[in-house]
């Protein structure tokens, strides 16, 4: 790691950089975990008119007053809900039809083609590590245009040349293989934001576009075996002070809401003697 310019911690860069891929007025299909924080940073920073779509079938307008612990923290966004429908409407209607402008999903175990595995490491029938499963990320990855993948982890094992189980389809094996499988034209991941840098998908494969100011090129080479790491032609911008302040405030809110944050101790429940 290097001294990170304005950023103190890799997670700050991830949330900040992912938020900057959004614009005010966007209708954002928001997955659970980091995407909730990304749309919160964007909402507090510049996105007063941003709209969130959640997979249970909700369109949430206005930023919920308190941070959500996840997308099923229903009562926290009850007052901000402008449409209450079904997953059929969310996935096959709002997402597929183009109502949704952008989508953000967690991609904590991802490969260079943007395939995400959130199901299991090792054999499905006898996994070494069992992960949560897909929720609706399979549908988001199948149908979203402008899909942003967010991986908040610095663990090199979370970046694979190819994942073992495709929970959410990226570009499969690269080339035309996604299209050949019958996924709709114009869909597929456009960006992957990681603590190490921002990747964009060009010719259906992740390419480094900006290196995080917190890491050297040699750090990335140790992590991303088999990925295209041609050094980007431009450095990343200096942090916007307001954006960075809000990002830090959202991370603090997340800590209060019991998010597991890297390098921070999880807030203890029932702190008064349990």
């Amino acid at each position: 790691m290097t001294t990170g310019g304005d950023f103190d911690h890799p997670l700050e860069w991830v949330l900040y950089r992912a938020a900057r891929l959004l614009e005010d007025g966007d209708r954002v299909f928001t997955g659970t975990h980091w995407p909730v924080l990304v749309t919160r940073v964007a909402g507090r920073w510049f996105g007063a008119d941003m709209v969130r779509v959640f997979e249970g079938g909700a369109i949430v307008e206005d930023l919920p007053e308190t941070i959500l612990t996840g997308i099923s923290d229903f009562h926290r966004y009850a007052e901000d809900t402008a449409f209450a429908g079904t997953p059929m409407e969310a996935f096959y209607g709002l997402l597929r039809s183009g109502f949704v402008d952008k989508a953000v999903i967690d991609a904590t175990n991802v490969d260079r083609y943007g395939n995400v595995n959130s199901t299991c490491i090792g054999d499905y029938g006898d996994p070494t590590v069992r992960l949560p499963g897909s929720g609706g990320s399979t549908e988001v990855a199948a149908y979203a245009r402008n899909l942003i993948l967010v991986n908040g982890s610095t663990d090199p094992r979370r970046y694979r040349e190819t994942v073992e189980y495709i929970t959410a389809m990226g570009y499969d094996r690269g080339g035309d293989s996604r299209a050949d499988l019958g996924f709709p034209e114009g869909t597929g991941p456009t960006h992957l934001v990681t603590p190490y840098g921002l990747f964009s998908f060009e010719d259906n494969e992740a390419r480094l576009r900006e290196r995080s100011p917190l890491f050297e090129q040699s750090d990335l080479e140790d992590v991303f075996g088999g990925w295209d790491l041609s050094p980007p032609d431009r450095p990343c911008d200096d942090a916007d002070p307001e954006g960075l302040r809000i990002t830090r405030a959202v991370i603090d809110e997340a800590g209060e809401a019991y998010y597991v944050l890297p390098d921070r101790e999880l807030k203890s429940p029932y702190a008064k003697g349990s």
Partner: protein
Amino acid sequence: MSGTVPRLSMKEAVGQFVEPGADVYLGNFGTAAFGAAHEIIRRGIGDLRVLMSSGGLLMDQLIGAGLLREALTTHCWGSVGPLPAANFRRALEDPKEGSVRVEDYSYGTFTAALMAGAYDMPFVPTTPMQRTGHDEHRALSGQDKYDRVEDPFTGGDVTVVKALRPEVAFVIVHRADRRGRGQWFGPRGELAYVGLAARQTVLIAEEIVGTEVVQQRPEATLPIANVEAVVHEPWTAHPESLFGMYHRDAEHVVYYCRRSRSEEGFEDYADRYIHGVDDREEYVERLREDGRFDLERTVYP
């Protein structure tokens, strides 16, 4: 359907509608039927096949109690943190004789399968699943999950999912009347379909209201073929949230996830908060006694 529907206690409802080996949908998406699950655990009704869109800590507790044979789900994890669902992980990473077997669905295909079940469709076109793990790895369903068929109109390939029709569904609603009209407010998830897909439905109502109240908001009444019973049970989804009525108890979710990291810790938790109480009222009372309950419940709408 006319006339009144029996109003049962959770004890009676679980006793009547959940037999060993039963095929049960446990609702809802995120707002989980903990009251029903805890009664199942107290009675030790096992060998179950459960359908849950979001397994969460409720599925984790049923697994910890050793009561599940099979689970069809899209996700099973702690809702806060997000911290792992420890019993779920243990059962899959280090299975023992009789450990649960899990079939992973995506949330879109799971809902579509219930929609097909609701509307008398044998299967329904759904998300492209080619090369996904959900398609390639089938723990339970074999061919009875996804397939690809030729679109008769365009000749292209289309993924289809087979209809799901659980025997019994436990569904949480904000309010219900004596005729079994259950009203839900907020995102419907698969509740739009499961009551028509299931052969029998038990409604768990946070409030019991008169028919004239139901008639004020007819669009909120869920489509359900056979409401067999109505159970009145406030706080039924605790520690999860209920849209418009109460918050998720994030503190308790974290507490549970930490306790259940060991099997002994899970047993201790279950002894105190599941086996150690008789019903939902005592559960809330126990939490209060232990200084672990400070939520408020608002009647909605």
